[in-house]
């Protein structure tokens, strides 16, 4: 895309931006199911303008039209606005399940929490710590937990622009088409594995933790240092059992 000529904000554009943000506020306050007419009344905006702004916000995924098509709810993209800050609260029950799994598996066991578009290393194995949790959180295309999150996106290129597919190691996937193939395989298998894409000598597998409604809320990450690229895959079956127990505790 070529950058357009910068004319600044002109005419009624500032007002439109303010109205769009006010609409987001109204939907957040009123809760899921609020209708276009109610939004217009609440903000005393002309109906046609309100409907147009609502359609724009829905088009950009900040809002979602509910299946009846007349109610609105906040979209998944809104989660990205708040970011992730501070220590992640994790229930004792969830920590206990993870600790129990660590007793069963001779490898690093970590718990990763997801928002719709980001991830956060919430409970890192104290005995086999991750080399660099911040790399896992940043390079979604290289870590197994990140790949799992990308495989869940309707369009992963919205969360991670193809120009940001950095080469972390010599084996990192950096071509969009290759990543596409990997993500398709992940969706098919139901878990993500990679070796040497984030650190030369580490292989890991991420098993999804889904809420009872099926939404991806977390992943159990098993990391193994060593030359064998499929070593962590051997643990998938036992990890899946624990992931099922974690589901109701996290979502």
């Amino acid at each position, binding site marked *: 895309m070529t950058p357009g000529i910068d004319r600044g904000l002109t005419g009624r554009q500032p007002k439109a931006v303010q109205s769009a943000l006010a609409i987001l506020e109204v939907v957040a306050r*009123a*809760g*899921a*199911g*609020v*209708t*276009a*007419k*109610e939004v217009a009344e*609440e903000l005393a905006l002309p*109906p*046609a303008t309100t*409907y147009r702004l609502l*359609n724009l916000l*829905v*088009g*950009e*995924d900040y809002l*979602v*039209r*509910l*299946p*009846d*098509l*007349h*109610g609105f*709810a*906040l*979209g*998944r993209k*809104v*989660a990205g606005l708040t970011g992730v800050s501070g220590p992640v609260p994790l229930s004792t029950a969830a920590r206990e399940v993870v600790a129990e799994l660590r007793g069963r598996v001779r490898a690093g066991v970590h718990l990763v929490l997801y*928002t*719709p578009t980001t991830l956060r290393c919430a409970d890192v194995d104290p005995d086999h710590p991750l080399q660099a949790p911040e790399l896992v959180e940043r390079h979604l295309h290289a870590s197994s937990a990140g790949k799992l999150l990308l495989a*869940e996106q*309707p*369009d992963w*290129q*919205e969360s991670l622009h193809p120009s940001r597919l950095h080469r972390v190691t010599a084996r990192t996937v950096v071509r969009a088409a290759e990543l596409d193939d990997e993500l*398709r395989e992940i969706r*098919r298998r139901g878990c993500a594995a990679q070796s040497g894409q984030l650190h030369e000598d580490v292989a890991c597998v991420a098993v999804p933790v889904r*809420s*009872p*409604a*099926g*939404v*991806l*809320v977390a992943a159990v990450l098993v990391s193994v240092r060593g030359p064998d690229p499929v070593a962590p895959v051997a643990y998938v079956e036992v990890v899946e059992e624990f992931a099922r127990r974690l589901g109701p505790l996290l*979502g």
Partner: protein
Amino acid sequence: MARSTDVRLPVRSPVAGLRRRRLSFLEVLAQSVSALAPSAAMVVVPSIVLVRSGSATLPAFVAATALVLLVGWCLTQFGRRMAAVGGTYSYTAKGLGPVGALVGGWALLVGYAAVAMSALVGSAIYLAGLLGLDPSPPVVAGLGTGLGVLATLFAIRGIQLSARIALALEVVSIALVLVVLGVLLLAPRGAPGTAAPVVDAPVHWGTVAVGVVLGVTAFMGFESAATLGVEARKPLVAVPRAVLWTPAVAGVLFFAAAAAQVVLLRAAPLDVLTSQVPVAELADRDGLGLLRRLLDLGIAASFFACVTGSTNALGRVLFSMAREGVLPAWLGRTHPRFETPHRALALVLPAVVGVPVVALALGAGPRAVLTGALTVSAFGYVLAYVLACLAMPLFLRRIGELTAVPLVGGLLAAGAGVLGLAAAMAGASLWGGQAMTVVFLAALLPGVAWALWLRWRAPERLRAVGVYDQATASSVLPGTVPAEPV
């Protein structure tokens, strides 16, 4: 504000299985443009309008473009609110309910299928010309079968592949047509020829009306991007934009092509104007045989792109109907690797290839099949558009978002469509005359009968009509809307 708290979101979209959010805006546009086949229409339609409308030709094209833009605008009212796979069929369901939707949907199927047949025969005729073969019925049937299989393979292999091929073919063929018209305009011309009185025939209301009806047929298929609601990136932005841009760009191209042909044909003999492709005839007479070859190549490519575009759209409408339970569920499966509705697409192939082959075998001339199928498809499209435009204000009222402008726009578009359809069905202006009206009504009958039968005997199968790529549990901010129990 009181909230209804009974909203539950499903975990999976009812139209899951197609490759999600992969097509760029250009690829979405390619779908609409290829189904419209602009370069073939640029060469063929203006001269037909000229014969009927004389100096009303250019105003008629302007009016036709405006009318199609109005219809397109009505469709964007749906397109901005729901990501559909069934195109105007799914849209109509949201305003007119299942029976109206099925009638419109069947008409749309007839439109896509008939235009695919027409384009298949067209592509075969021009390919035969290019290869130096005589376009006899067996040659056309043979080439058509091969092209049909090829188009279906592209469509099954992936929408992205077929959209890119279609876009490349269209860009090349539009460029070829513009080059040919440009060269002919630069060539020396004599005094007004025997065609001049026809080209300059005075304007009457009647000639304008006929010209508009004929001109509108050149735009058919412009809405087919509306079947890419799952596969497009930002579908609620890209699809409405493609549905508006396609007729806008096509309108400019048609106007330019018509203006060029007015100038060229005014200086031509009458038999050139009434020949099948006057532009090609002109190139031949000017001793520009190479130009004629280029033109044949462009038209063959454009028609082939139209076959793939129409097949893609046709398969997706059938896929939607199967997912709703209106058609058998096996048609709603998608290919595990290519993520296309491969069964629906494969079902389309024998129909699209078989009908023209049978017609040719029964002794119909290739040109007659081309124009006859085109007429039938125009009826199908216009009926589908009329119903969707009528549904639009009802839909907006149902969701509480109706304002004055869409109400007027919808009624205006539907009214104009009904008038055009009535005029065309009376056999006054289209190719093939009233025989094609009978063919169309016969083709429409099974769909209407099926809809009424379902309504009468199995109304529960109509409940899901209008499925689209609706919000799922993972499309909202976590924790704001509960999910359906799995």
